[in-house]
């Protein structure tokens, strides 16, 4: 059976697309799925750094899409997880180096080899976005609880709908203290505006910065709230769609957690 092609997008830059792609990809690969993460941000590649694979790049996506190498040659195996592969972006081309039609062809091949194909979409809604979305079956929209991020995510959701893709939402970088003080949008405020299915809520976590800088997936850190949240997102994507969504909170009493689990609706 063919794998699923999931594009990770947001519209706005810097909301955590690359981190989410790497983390969810790693989480799924850890459960035994064959996963490839594709960096679509041609000209501004980052995903290789986040995954700690920057010194192994020989071929990149532009080579693979344009037939200069085979997809297997371009896919770099992760250092720690055997089932996880990375197809890096090119650093010295621009977004026009590939076309949506060629992407569709390329992804068809990838689908045969992998269970999940994650595509890290560049910020914006121009050529790079078109390339990434053309081949996607599903979409994850990453949004932070900020008005600007919500507006861009909203635009992207509209564009995805127009391409017959129903996106799912991940709200990233929630600071529970600020939400409780009323200084930050809550995930319900975000959902009110965007009104799409919620896939997960990721709390703000310093460990993410450490993990991205050292190139180790955040999911290996069992103490990290964000890492655990990404793992649960991985489970929801693969076989456990009804896994309850935990709302990041300052309190950690068991009863509060139970109450929240029942309170959150998708």
């Amino acid at each position, binding site marked *: 059976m063919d794998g699923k092609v999931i594009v990770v997008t947001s519209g706005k830059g810097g909301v955590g697309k690359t981190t989410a792609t790497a983390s969810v990809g790693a989480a799924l690969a850890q459960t035994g799925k064959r996963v490839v993460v594709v960096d679509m941000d041609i000209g501004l590649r980052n995903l290789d750094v986040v995954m700690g694979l920057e010194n192994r790049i020989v071929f990149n996506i532009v080579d693979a899409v344009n037939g200069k190498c085979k997809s297997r040659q371009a896919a770099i195996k992760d250092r720690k997880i055997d089932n996880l592969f990375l197809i890096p972006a090119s650093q010295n081309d621009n977004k026009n180096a590939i076309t949506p039609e060629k992407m569709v062809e390329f992804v068809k091949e990838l689908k045969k080899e992998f269970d999940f194909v994650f595509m890290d979409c560049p910020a914006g809604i121009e050529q790079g976005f078109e390339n990434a979305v053309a081949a996607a079956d599903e979409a994850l929209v990453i949004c932070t609880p900020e*008005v600007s991020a*919500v*507006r*861009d995510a*909203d*635009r992207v*959701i*509209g*564009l995805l*709908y127009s391409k017959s893709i129903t996106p799912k939402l991940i709200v990233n970088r929630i600071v529970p203290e600020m939400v409780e003080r009323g200084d930050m949008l809550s995930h319900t405020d975000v959902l*009110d*505006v965007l*009104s799409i299915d919620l896939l997960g809520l990721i709390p703000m976590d310093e460990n993410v910065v450490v993990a991205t800088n050292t190139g180790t997936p955040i999911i290996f850190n069992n103490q990290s709230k964000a890492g655990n949240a990404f793992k649960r997102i991985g489970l929801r994507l693969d076989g456990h769609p009804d896994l309850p969504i935990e709302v990041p909170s300052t309190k950690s009493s068991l009863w509060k957690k139970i109450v929240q689990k029942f309170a959150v609706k998708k």
Partner: protein
Amino acid sequence: MIKDNPVVKLKGVGDSLWITLDPAQPVDVIQKEMDRLFNRMKHLAVNARIIIDTGGKDSKEKSKLVQELGFYLKEKFCVGYVSMPPRQRVVDEERARKKDVSRSWEHHKNNVLMLAGRVRSGQKVVAKKHLLIMGDVNPGAEVQAAGDIIVMGTLKGLAAAGQPENEEAIVAALVFCPSLLKIGGYVAGAPSLQSMGIAEFAHVEHGEIIVEDYLKAGFFGKLPWLEVR
């Protein structure tokens, strides 16, 4: 042949003959003129429906005159049925009331664009007349109409009603917090970022846009009869 102001004019209207006459003229002059016209029609006048229009407002003398002429025509030319024209449309008010009674809106052509769903950021909806959205207008979205805009939901985007120059238009929403508001040529910034949680609407009054509680203001509730907008 064509006189400047003939005493009696005759024309076919629908299935009847419409006679316009000057009630100020003496009866025998009118009858003479009628004779002239009806003689020419011969058998066409037999059993015809006649409407006698005396012009101006209705009065007792006029209906008496019409009655008299009716008898005359029935006797002489065997016409079928004589009546006065349907009530005169003299004033706008009467016209409006009549619309109400006759339920004129049943024949009114639908010019409302009614959409269900969510207008998302970057989308622009333009209506030729009125716009009704069953759903929300997100921040960054734009809704524009030549007439009114009504949002059955949250209005957070840009709303431009009465474009380009209808200042009678209104913008109403259940949760009213547009980022920018235009009515006709008037522009208003975000009226209040925090909605009061009540249905509000904006309209132009004395050259500025005013936002009011929709239910309290009773803007349309005060209208004495139904109007097609």
